């Protein structure tokens, strides 16, 4: 590498090796050239969901060191605090060692070890009966799974619609808000154009999501002097280095964004040309109150939406590139009165209720600041445009000599998502981006392939018909386009255990994992037999209302049977959820397994080209554990699920690695897109390549394809890109993707609420559907804020995971827990002073759902109406290999205890899941609290406390001293 070009993100001249790296002759006996590793394996990190490339250095059969892969498109050589602590995760004393069968009461932690054969027999017998009778009685939910294309397909082959991963309690509002609006979204679906943007707005990013790409990107912006504006109640992490920190009041981001839109519209600072070319701004909307198609698009005889041509003074196919469509006005076409979408947009957001002065107090942001930011957005978008000297052709064949860009970009995540108004707020942020003409342009927000897809993308969710011994006719999770796609029966009863795609949560694209335990316990909408879960801490920090959730997991019916009859759980560690399982399937660590990070799943593409990656075992397990995906494949074969057996009934795949290479979802398309075809020369589509995994390993564990220069922008309408996307199988036709400012699918739900169509909501729920399925984004007070006495509960309460733990399940990590082992409640100095509190006081944090005790830390960098804490630091005694005196279970606390999992009863007495009414996204951040100084004798320890779990059999106590690495030195010095 001496003469090669510098590689990786940290390759500035001031970050390179010395010009002469020969060791000086110091004569102090220091060994400056110890041997580092016997081998280096390149695989993919799993310390969070970022999926960076890592180089794992193996020495003397152990992991010596892990560093970032310089060639990897996600992290370009850098590595975060979690990734660098992978050794401690891999060698954690909390690792499970063998399959376990419950021997004591559920929740006690009393188990006996069993062999894998017995574990498989128990699971097969139980699941086989379910499949032969009522397949829906298996609920399979997979937490922070990165293999959802396998697990979802397994569920569908089993024949149960009751499948989802953790998206419903994480960020489905962002995914759904984006996919229904622009056919893409943040994070895995798109990213800011870090190299060209001049003005970057970061909304509600709680320390991470995603990790290294944002950090690399922010450093580029800072180096270039681009402006970074953060909108976040907390001034930590990324927000600490923003040029402009807007300490917004939680849940009001939508109002703030609408005020920006209000200002931009009033000043005529929107990109009309962009709106006509790439959005439905000009599409005519029928205005005929009472009609069954009121609010739907006016369509021609070919069912294409139409616009009004200003020149021809007639209706015209809205997609006609020759059209000169009107954006404003009111027109009568074939006797129907219609207005363009843009007219509705202008009518709504130019209303004075969205003026900066009207929203300033509620947002906690001065009106002048809102006006200033609107002016800055307009200035950068319209006066600082950039042009790349690259010719490209759009979908209609029009050639453009350059690629023009408006260099404003945005990123948003959890702080937007985790409110009951998050879906509409997410749509608002996309609307703002689209009005400025900044989506997939140089300097703007860029799609990552396989996105964009049509808004919404297909397919629809399956599960209307469930029959014994029969696979579903598609995938359990998908995108509904109207009430007919809902999974409800004639009586409006939800068909899924989590009530996804019911009137409770019509656009529940990721399911509602957070409702499963309550619903299964209550038998609402029906009883299940087996709850199978993977990698999600549902008896602790992944559930709301922890205390009651634990009670539901252990509750009995009158006959002494558990109300949730059987729980199968797979985890690599002794988490708080393991003791509630009847059968425990011990998983491997991320360094001991195969995985694929697939374009069929949650891809790791870059805006400059698609990519995917693998994990492969770099160390052998030293315990009787198996990778969950291989276990699932074997279970599928034992059950005889059609996709998992050959015609003769034999197992189709020997393990996950075999599946990764040989499975084809549709002919030529499999889990991995790189090196397909017999000779490995094809990408995207191609025959199975038996040597595919080796090709990945040889390439450093990943595959990445760079776009040609003319394919990189305007992907929603770029001929060359669209053709490539069809060839890769990302989309079925090379047609433009139209951004949906106005969402027709949402209006269809409203029409049902007004009494139209075959599938209509129950009478009592019509008003709710009418209100929240608004086809244009709007703002409403988050549910808990609207329901509680604000005098009594004056504060918002939030959580975030610290950067060094984000998405990194398990604070048993010996190194990371030294950085944070007790979470404090952060309180603004002024707020504390008003309450008579001083630094380090112990307080009760009380909500309408209960109270929890913790210690406060006073800060200035927080919205004064808000308190917050680090999430999931508090642990239950007996879990994660922690000692009884660990700070996590004595002084750390879990805010989840006081977050309700249900809303207050509505006028009809119905309690909904504490979720967004559109998507079912868990509304963690709606929480309202008060804080009260606790009595002197109560200080010093957290409450509530929980009984200590018993330890699994044959698990050695965690060590009292850790000398990791001493052996490398001993061996090194022995050689010398």
């Amino acid at each position, binding site marked *: 590498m001496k003469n090669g070009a510098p590689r990786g993100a940290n390759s500035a001249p001031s970050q390179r090796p010395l010009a002469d790296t020969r060791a*000086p002759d110091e004569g*102090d006996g220091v060994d400056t050239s110890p041997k580092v590793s016997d081998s280096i394996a390149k695989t993919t990190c799993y310390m969070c969901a970022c999926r960076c490339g890592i180089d794992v250095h193996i020495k003397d059969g152990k992991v010596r060191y892990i560093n970032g892969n310089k060639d990897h498109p996600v992290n370009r050589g850098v590595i975060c605090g979690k*990734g660098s602590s992978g050794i401690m995760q891999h060698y954690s004393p909390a690792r499970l060692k063998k399959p376990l069968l419950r021997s004591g009461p559920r929740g006690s932690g009393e188990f006996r070890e069993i062999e894998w054969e017995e574990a498989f027999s128990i699971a097969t017998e139980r699941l086989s009966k379910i499949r032969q009778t009522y397949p829906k009685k298996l609920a399979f939910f997979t937490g922070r799974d990165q293999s959802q294309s396998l697990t979802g397909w397994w569920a569908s082959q089993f024949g149960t619609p009751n499948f989802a991963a953790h998206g419903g309690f994480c960020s489905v509002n962002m995914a759904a808000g984006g996919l229904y609006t622009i056919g893409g979204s943040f994070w895995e679906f798109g990213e800011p154009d870090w190299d060209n943007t001049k003005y970057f707005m970061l909304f509600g990013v709680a320390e991470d999501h995603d990790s290294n790409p944002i950090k690399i990107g922010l450093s580029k912006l800072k180096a270039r002097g681009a402006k970074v504006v953060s909108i976040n109640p907390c001034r930590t992490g990324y927000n600490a280095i923003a040029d402009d920190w807007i300490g917004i009041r939680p849940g009001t981001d939508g109002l703030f964004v609408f005020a920006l839109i209000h200002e931009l*519209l009033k000043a005529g600072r929107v990109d009309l040309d962009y709106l006509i070319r790439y959005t439905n701004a000009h599409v005519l909307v029928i205005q005929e109150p009472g009609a069954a198609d009121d609010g739907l698009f006016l369509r021609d005889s070919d069912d294409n939406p139409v616009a009004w041509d200003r020149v021809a003074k007639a209706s015209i196919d809205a997609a006609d590139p020759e059209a000169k469509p009107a954006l404003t006005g009111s027109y009568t076409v074939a006797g129907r009165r219609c207005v363009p979408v843009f007219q509705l947009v202008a009518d709504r957001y130019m209303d004075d209720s969205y003026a900066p002065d009207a929203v300033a107090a509620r947002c906690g942001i001065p009106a002048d600041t809102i006006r200033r930011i609107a002016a800055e957005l307009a200035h*950068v978008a319209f006066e600082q445009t950039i042009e790349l000297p690259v010719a490209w052709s759009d979908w209609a064949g029009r050639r453009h000599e350059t690629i023009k860009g408006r260099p404003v970009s945005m990123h948003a995540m959890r702080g937007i998502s985790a409110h009951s108004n998050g879906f509409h707020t997410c749509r608002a942020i996309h609307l703002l981006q689209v009005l400025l003409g900044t989506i997939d342009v140089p300097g703007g927000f860029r799609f990552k392939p396989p996105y964009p897809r049509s808004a919404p993308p297909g397919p629809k969710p399956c599960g209307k018909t469930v029959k014994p011994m029969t696979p579903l006719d598609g995938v359990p999770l998908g995108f509904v386009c109207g009430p007919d796609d809902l999974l409800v029966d004639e009586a409006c009863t939800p068909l899924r255990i989590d009530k996804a795609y019911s009137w409770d949560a019509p656009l529940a694209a990721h399911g509602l994992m957070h409702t499963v335990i309550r619903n299964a316990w209550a038998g609402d909408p029906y009883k299940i037999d087996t709850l199978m879960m993977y990698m999600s801490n549902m008896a602790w920090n992944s559930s709301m209302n922890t205390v009651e959730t634990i009670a539901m997991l252990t509750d009995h019916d009158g006959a002494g049977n558990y109300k949730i009859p059987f729980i199968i759980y797979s985890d690599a560690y002794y988490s708080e959820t393991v003791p509630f399982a009847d059968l425990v399937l011990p998983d491997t660590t991320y360094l001991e397994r195969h995985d694929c990070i697939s374009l069929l799943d949650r891809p790791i593409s870059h805006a400059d080209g698609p990519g995917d990656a693998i994990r492969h075992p770099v160390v052998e397990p030293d315990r009787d554990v198996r990778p969950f995906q291989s276990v699932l494949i074997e279970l599928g074969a034992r059950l005889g699920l059609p996709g998992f057996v050959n015609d003769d009934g034999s197992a189709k795949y020997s393990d996950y690695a075999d599946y990764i290479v040989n499975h084809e979802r549709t002919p030529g398309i499999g889990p991995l897109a790189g090196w397909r075809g017999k000779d490995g020369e094809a990408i995207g589509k191609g025959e199975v390549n038996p040597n595919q995994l080796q090709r990945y390993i040889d390439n450093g564990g990943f595959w990445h394809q760079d776009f040609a220069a003319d394919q990189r922008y305007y992907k929603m309408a770029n001929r060359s890109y669209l053709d490539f996307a069809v060839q890769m199988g990302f989309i079925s036709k090379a047609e433009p993707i139209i951004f949906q400012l106005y969402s027709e699918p949402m209006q269809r739900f409203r029409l049902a609420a007004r009494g139209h169509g075959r599938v209509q909501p129950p009478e009592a729920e019509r008003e709710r559907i009418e209100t929240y399925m608004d086809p244009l984004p709007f703002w409403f007070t988050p549910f808990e804020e609207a329901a509680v006495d604000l005098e009594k509960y004056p504060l918002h309460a939030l959580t975030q995971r610290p950067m060094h733990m984000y998405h990194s399940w398990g604070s048993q990590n010996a*190194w990371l827990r030294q950085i944070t*082992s007790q979470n404090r409640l952060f309180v603004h100095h002024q707020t504390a002073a008003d309450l008579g509190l001083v630094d380090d006081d112990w307080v009760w944090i009380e909500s309408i759902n209960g109270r929890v005790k913790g210690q406060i830390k006073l800060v200035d960098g927080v919205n004064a109406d808000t308190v917050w804490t680090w999430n999931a630091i508090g642990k239950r005694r007996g879990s994660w290999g922690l000692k009884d005196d660990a700070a996590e279970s004595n002084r750390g606390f879990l805010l989840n205890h006081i977050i309700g999992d249900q809303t207050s009863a509505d006028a009809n007495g119905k309690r909904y899941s504490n979720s967004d009414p559109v998507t079912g996204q868990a509304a963690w951040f709606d929480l309202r609290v008060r804080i009260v100084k606790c009595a002197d004798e109560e200080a010093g320890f957290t409450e509530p406390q929980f009984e200590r779990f018993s330890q699994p059999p044959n698990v050695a106590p965690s060590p*009292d001293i850790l000398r990791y690495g001493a052996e490398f030195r001993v061996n090194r010095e022995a050689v010398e």
Partner: protein
Amino acid sequence: MTCLPAHTDKKLGLVIDLDTCVGCQACVTACKEWNTGGHMAPLTDIHPYGGDVDGVWFNRVHSYEHTTEAGGRTVNFPRSCLHCETPACVTVCPTGASYKRASDGIVLIDESKCIGCKLCSWACPYGAREFDTDVGVMKKCTLCVDRIYNDNLAEEDRVPACVAACPTSARHFGDLGDPASAVSQLVASRGGVDLMPEMGYKPTNKYLPPRAQRAASVAAPRLEPVKAEGGFLGWVDRMLSN
């Protein structure tokens, strides 16, 4: 009493950019991970799973809130040995265990000579020394002396582990004694500073201060409502007709 070299050929050190540090702890654990198997291995952790956990770390990040006339800000501050030119931790050492290399200026500890008296940790005003109670010797940042010259690493990897890891590119490495070096140029261009220069130990490592807050850095004229007849909608119509 241990003597300092009269002159060092190089002044190797780190430059840390407080303007981009987000406090992510990547440098902290990358350092721990490399060094726990490195020159001073191990970086022992006492009670790693218990209540009074106490580990050896060569690099730690602290977060501070700071109030200026322009308003408050949060500063993340990585702290490790500054490899001072005249370090008290060396001169105070009674055995010669603590020493400064004449070749490159790195301050190291010879464990075989360390008697664990802790005078050096009392002398260091930066809190950069870490006592390993398990073996009774003092340990500290080696500037990855076993990486930067390591023939067993690819040449491009011969930088301190913290510099290689940092996801926000906030860490830099080089010869601060050479005014022409890239790090010296960076310090000059960004107004890099010494920590507590009044102590007189002449730290080699430099910190780049956070840039002035730039809340109003975009010189955007105030937005005015469109003056066209018919207001905004009239403006839209005229724009489309052009």
